């Protein structure tokens, strides 16, 4: 969020060991150049989701964090029916000057999205910044309308991604608040918006650092942590804890179907953290030895509950019934003005599941990629706004959006 943040913790830290900080500037400000092999020149219109049956968000996630088996890939490609990768738009700064017309916000977004370390919301905001750059608007009003259109098309392109929606909303909110009235002329307002959008990647990285800092107090020596799926924030939290010489053990769930847990256990093993892998159904079995549950979130909703990878809800239920704390690590740009009442009260996010053997066509397969965990099963949320109880989320959202 644009407002206050607990970044002072970070700033202090940076001042403290100013010498040793080598802030990884992995976030290049230009879209990544995807491999040339995918440069299939398909010029089909990008204006709609290629396959509404499959959640683009979860596909990207799987591509970034999952351990993809060849047969899954084959199945996924069969389901999509075509090459998912498309012509990457070259450097927008170069291109926009000569072919402004051919610019598409979705294409832009899609390119940003492929950068593994970049959050979806950041990608969305980068894409919107590109819209501003390309735009030929001369007044703030025109620009706003243009942006609105772009963000609407982005949102409708992938309705399953909460952080995409939240990122668009957040930026739109910022644009409407930063009216040109504050600046004398349109151009300075415009450059300010672009600057802000560029900065957002940094903010998102910083947010992860803040969350990692905040959560250190909760990780004590000798504790056992259960982690579900792969989350960049949770990885950052655990990495920081390991760097702080904390002694802890991690149990990783497998994270079917894209097996994101394997990836996480791999990363943790590199840090010399003792890791144990579980299959997803062994959660209740091993809950006894667990001290806390750490999960990430795809989205944090108005009620204070989270929407996360399939399986989070049942882990939270088991942890709740055994009185184990469930901690959620989520950046504040994942806060969304959604209020699901139950599991089915969300736009379905589907993805293909590989069972290893062919499934008879008569058998129905539950392909939903995520579930909703109600707030009463969560203990605390670690966000860059601080450590919040679930009910504060709504407070923050009301202050931000109303």
């Amino acid at each position: 969020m644009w407002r206050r943040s607990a970044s002072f913790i970070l700033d202090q830290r940076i001042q403290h060991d100013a010498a040793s900080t080598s802030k990884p500037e992995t976030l290049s400000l230009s879209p990544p150049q995807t491999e040339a092999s995918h440069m299939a020149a398909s010029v089909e219109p990008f204006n709609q989701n290629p396959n509404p049956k499959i959640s683009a968000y979860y596909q990207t996630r799987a591509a970034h964090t999952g351990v993809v088996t060849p047969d899954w890939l084959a199945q996924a490609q069969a389901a999509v029916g075509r090459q998912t990768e498309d012509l990457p738009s070259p450097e927008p700064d170069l291109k926009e000057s000569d072919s402004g017309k051919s610019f598409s916000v979705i294409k832009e977004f899609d390119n940003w999205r492929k950068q593994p370390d970049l959050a979806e919301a950041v990608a969305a905001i980068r894409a919107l910044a590109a819209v501003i750059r390309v735009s030929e608007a001369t007044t703030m009003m025109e620009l706003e309308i243009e942006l609105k259109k772009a963000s609407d098309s982005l949102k409708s392109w992938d309705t399953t991604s909460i952080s995409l929606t939240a990122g668009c909303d957040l930026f739109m909110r910022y644009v409407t608040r930063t009216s040109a009235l504050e600046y004398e002329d349109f151009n300075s307002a415009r450059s300010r918006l672009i600057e802000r959008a560029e900065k957002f990647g940094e903010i998102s990285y910083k947010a992860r650092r803040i969350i990692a800092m905040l959560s250190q107090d909760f990780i004590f020596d000798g504790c056992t942590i259960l982690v579900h799926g792969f989350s960049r924030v949770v990885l950052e939290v655990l990495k920081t804890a390991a760097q702080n010489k904390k002694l802890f053990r991690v149990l990783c769930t497998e994270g079917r179907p894209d097996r994101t847990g394997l990836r996480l256990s791999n990363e943790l093993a590199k840090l010399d953290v003792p890791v144990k892998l579980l299959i997803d159904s062994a959660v209740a079995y091993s809950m006894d030895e667990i001290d806390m549950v750490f999960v990430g979130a795809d989205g944090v909703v108005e009620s204070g509950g989270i929407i996360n990878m399939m399986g989070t809800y049942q882990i939270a239920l088991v942890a709740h019934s055994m009185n184990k704390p469930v901690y959620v690590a989520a950046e504040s740009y994942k806060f969304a003005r959604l209020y699901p009442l139950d599991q089915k009260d969300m736009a379905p996010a589907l993805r293909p599941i590989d069972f290893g053997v062919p499934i008879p066509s008569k058998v129905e397969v539950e392909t939903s990629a995520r579930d909703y965990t109600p707030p009463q099963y969560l203990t605390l949320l670690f966000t860059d706004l601080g450590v919040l109880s679930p009910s504060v989320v709504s407070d923050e959202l009301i202050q931000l959006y109303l």
Partner: protein
Amino acid sequence: MEPRRSPRTVIDPKVRQVGFFAPGAPPERSVSVPPAPIVSSSSSSPPVSDLSPSGNSLSPVMIPPPRHSSADNALLPSPSPSRPVPASPLRRDSLTTAAGRSYSKPSDFFPAMSLTASSSYAGRMVGNAEFSADLRGNTVKVVPTASSFPSGGFDLTAVKASSVPATGLTTVSVVKMMPPGITVYDPEIIVEKVGGSVEVQNDRPERSKPLKEKTSKAERRALQEAQRAAKAEGSKVPASSGAVMGANAKPIKATKPHSQKNDSATVAGSEKRGGDRLSEKDRKKDAPHPRMQYDDKIRVEKAKRRAVVKQTEAKNRVELFRHLPQYEHGTQLPDLESKFFQLDPVHPAVYKVGLQYLSGSISGGNARCIAMLEAFREAIKDYSTPSEKTLSRDLTAKISSYVSFLIECRPLSISMGNAIRFLKSCIAKVPLTLSESEAKASLQSDVEHFINEKIILADNVIVNHAVTKIRDGDVLLTYGSSSAVEMILLHAHELGKQFRVVVVDSRPKLEGKLLLRRLVGKGLSCTYTNINAISYIMREVTQVFLGASSVLSNGTVYSRVGTACVAMVAHEFRVPVLVCCEAYKFHERVQLDSICSNELGDPDVISEVPGRDDINYLDGLTNSENLQLLNLIYDVTPSDYVSMIVTDYGMVPPTSVPVIVREYRREHVWV
């Protein structure tokens, strides 16, 4: 409860003694007896005929303060800080002085009264027989107020000794603090003006506060001595009146606190002395407290005398709910109708609305609120500022008098309280530079804005939000008849959603039938059942939509009785409960049970079923002492049972109600 109430009620406060202490007057010295530690039964009340002689100016009231002598100067003139001020929208805003506030509120604390306080004055009366009537007049009126001083847990013995010296001072200061506006319109009050007090009255408006410091040391000293003397005298009395004590069978030790309490009571008594300045217009300000405790007989008596609507109190009320008003229904309408042309203080439009409330032809939170605001708008239209008055002050007083009339007809709902608060803040904000017609026009448009924005528009927004939660194949359950829920269901039907409605209803109002009729008329498929079947029907329900009279700061939903039951069953069945409530009904109060603030309906309607003579088993029993009928109107639903509150600011969890109150109430209602 009963035993402690009865002693006070024995004495009918017929006399308002205006005691004023003129320091140095010898007769007063002997007479102004600080209460001696005596106990007597309340039955020993003196004859009523023994009123104070009208010409007698030598009847002072000595008022030792309730607390330390050192603190009483600071404490007494403004006792209000020590009390939690109820956040009632109808607080007398016009009476801004400290004393003014202290007058209007003691009723809140009345239940804290103990037996000792009430019996002590009786003892005191016995002590000074000749002034008993006068004292009684004062004390009786005052007893409830006494309890408002935080003297309860005090070391009373210690206090008593220390409190004596400053008494005279306190008396003076309190009396002089009286703001001119405070009056008690009470025809039965016999006003007496002691020489000193008359003078004070004349210049009271100019010098209200500074006077209290003016009491010189010498004066105080004189007082002190007077009291000591009196005390020495008084201490003899108990021996003689000891015989009377038997009735109460009270140890003498216990009487110590009495004197102290009694004293503080008398302090307050002198506050009320303001009653000597009554006039028609002041009467308007002097409305009953919106949350008056109705088990306080004295206040009720007073409120009744003031009341336009002569409601008869139901005799046989359930013990736990005696603090709530409960009236015999159906008797007062003809009386009120006949009064229509004689009552000038109440605007006809307001009068009409009041009658409609009374007869029940307008019910439902929004309907009542809109009707009230429309009536006020009419009243503002016809309003003209009297000469030598400012619009903002006089109109506020006028509105207050209307509100008190409406309260007499039916207790206010929280939403109405919020609306009134809004209106009053609008009146207060009217710039002085505006001409009267402009001010009136702006106020009228303010009222209209409120109705449109906060009620009608808000309902539209709520409907649009809530409809997104209705999916095809849903079975929606609703309880009673809520206007917001009805709009949601109709709109969802218009959008072509396929769903079914279960209307749950309950005796005695059976409001659900009306809703059912309208829904079926629009072609919705409905099921109608009574609340008895709730646990059966809940199995097939997918969502519960409820209306609310108010949502309180802890997320508690205050709504039609039975709502809590429905929400609880739904919660037990893991069915989401959506409460639809406009944000103007949110209130910053917190309520944990449905006892302390509620409304009692006509008890007869639950005892008999009209048209079913065969089951009227209670015929002839309704007046039985052993039968108490409870017809509650509202109940509170804990926030645990509520999944979501749909409001005009979106769909929020119940924990966010205080956030909305904090963020938005300020800009609309508070200045």
